[in-house]
């Protein structure tokens, strides 16, 4: 069954159409890659799903439920979270605090609770911190929980961003170039992590990626965007052999394997 399905979504910036009549179907617990040349509208598509942009036309369904035009925080509550192309952490907060902030939608104690330090407040605090630690060890960051986020190494920051994103146990996770700027070994780690996210936590993964090798290796379905519209879609092998894709995106066939 489809966890996310968009039908002819269109987003304009002034004159140009960043995405044009985009129909996309993402099946549950799958790993899907969105690829395409720069400016093909990949990130814009993410921004439409997460509610940062409101598309002019079309609608996006999440588990058969209309989420188009909902404010971002509502969509996050529904269970869609994301990471960012250029890492955006809460830099002057500690690693754990970043995750705790990510847990926001899972917690319920109100301002008043915290004022009077109600039972719920105390329990939630301990609970949330425990969960945060579990997440830390899941992404392999345990031990640096009390460092400031900005002091982490680059790869660790990427992982922390994912940790924050999964802190409110989402159903769908949008990864915007998760391995950008990583060295091969870090990339391998990241691939493993992404797999585990899906296998262990059963999270549907949609990722934007330029590293074709990675894409081919990891994804069960690939969506190719060009100038804002979908030009191809299918299993990695189909995409590799799809003439339009080769034409529009990959140029020469063998460049795939560089």
């Amino acid at each position: 069954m489809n966890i996310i399905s968009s039908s002819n979504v269109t987003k304009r910036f002034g004159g140009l159409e960043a995405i044009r009549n985009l129909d996309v179907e993402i099946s549950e617990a799958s790993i899907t890659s969105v690829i395409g040349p720069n400016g093909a509208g990949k990130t814009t598509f993410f921004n439409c799903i997460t509610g940062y942009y409101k598309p002019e036309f079309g609608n996006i369904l999440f588990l058969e439920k209309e989420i188009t035009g909902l404010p971002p925080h509502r969509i996050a509550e529904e269970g869609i979270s994301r990471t960012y192309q250029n890492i955006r952490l809460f830099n002057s907060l500690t690693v754990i605090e970043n995750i705790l902030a990510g847990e926001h939608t899972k917690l319920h104690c109100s301002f008043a609770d915290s004022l009077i330090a109600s039972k719920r407040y105390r329990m939630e605090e301990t609970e949330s911190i425990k969960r945060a630690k579990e997440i830390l060890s899941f992404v392999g960051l345990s031990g640096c929980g009390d460092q400031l986020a900005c002091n982490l190494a680059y790869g660790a920051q990427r992982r922390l961003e994912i940790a924050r994103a999964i802190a409110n146990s989402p159903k769908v996770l949008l990864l915007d170039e998760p391995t950008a700027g990583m060295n091969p070994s870090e990339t391998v780690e990241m691939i493993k992590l992404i797999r585990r996210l899906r296998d262990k936590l059963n999270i549907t993964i949609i990722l934007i990626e330029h590293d074709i090798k990675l894409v081919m290796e990891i994804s069960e379905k690939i969506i190719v965007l060009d100038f804002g519209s979908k030009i191809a879609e299918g299993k990695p092998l189909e995409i590799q052999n799809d003439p339009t894709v080769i034409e529009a995106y990959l140029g020469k066939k063998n460049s795939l394997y560089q």
Partner: protein
Amino acid sequence: MKEFASKLFNKLDQRIIRYVLPSLISIVILSIPLINSPQKNLWVRIIGYAGLYIILGLGLLVHVGLAGMFDLGFAAFYAIGAYTYAFLASPHFNIHLPFLLVLVLAGSFAAIVGLLICIPVLKLRGDYLGIVTLGFGEIVRMLLMNLTNITNGSQGIFKLDKPSILVMTFTSGTFFYYFIFILVALLLFLLNRVINSRTGRAWLAMREDEDVAQMSGINTSKYKLLAFALGAFIGGMGGAIFASWQGSIFPDNFNMNVSINILCVIILGGLGNQFGVILGAMALIALPDILRGFSDYRMIIFGLLLIIMMILQPQGFLPRKAPELENKVLKQGKKKKEVQS
């Protein structure tokens, strides 16, 4: 062995920072009015007035330090609180409500106004919010100045009630001194809880990156409003205390310099650190009075000190110290295990 020693020392160190120092400070602060010297009233006045600015600073801290909402017009809430007191506890309208009640009313009224000004500007950020609040602050002052038939305009309101709790009426500065510092302790206590809660972290996240905060599921509008109302509430209470202490108020008491001073207090103290505010207030409000010896050179010295302090300590005296949650949890985990076994 050596390790153990250093560990022990660290522990002691921790203890000192956590308990001994604050207790010492509070003892010193609390015992000032008890010294029997002609200088007493002066110091009660100076430190007490600094204490008032701690309260205001904590209010603005919620706006700027926690929620990251640049506020250049905080004096407005201070003024609203003060005038609420003047209306409800003075011969002006011949209403004389009890002190504590008016205190809460002043805060609430300031909070309501805070909400009203905040709602339309929720989308504004950074300096744009700053300039709007600045304008708002000025507008409030000018309205106080010009709605003569309500506020008595520039001529101010005199003979405000001295606070009376139960049957006792207090006239001495000593009362205000203690009252202010009890309130400070209470505020510090509560704010600390809030900061280390879901709410507080939502604010901090918002301050760090509003978009990401929202896409992490934080309803930024709601938390902005909450922060603004809370800050305004604290500011309003401060205003009421000021009014009852000074006994007469004029619109000029709430000009832009007041807003700027409060901002200096929290930045000097260290943004996002509620204890920094104490140091900031002491430095900023008490300093000019301590510099009185320099007579008419004092303000130029004050200006210089501001620059130097910022260059030496750009983070302020006490930058925010994040709680060490990871270790804390470890401890608790162990405890649980012990219980089980």
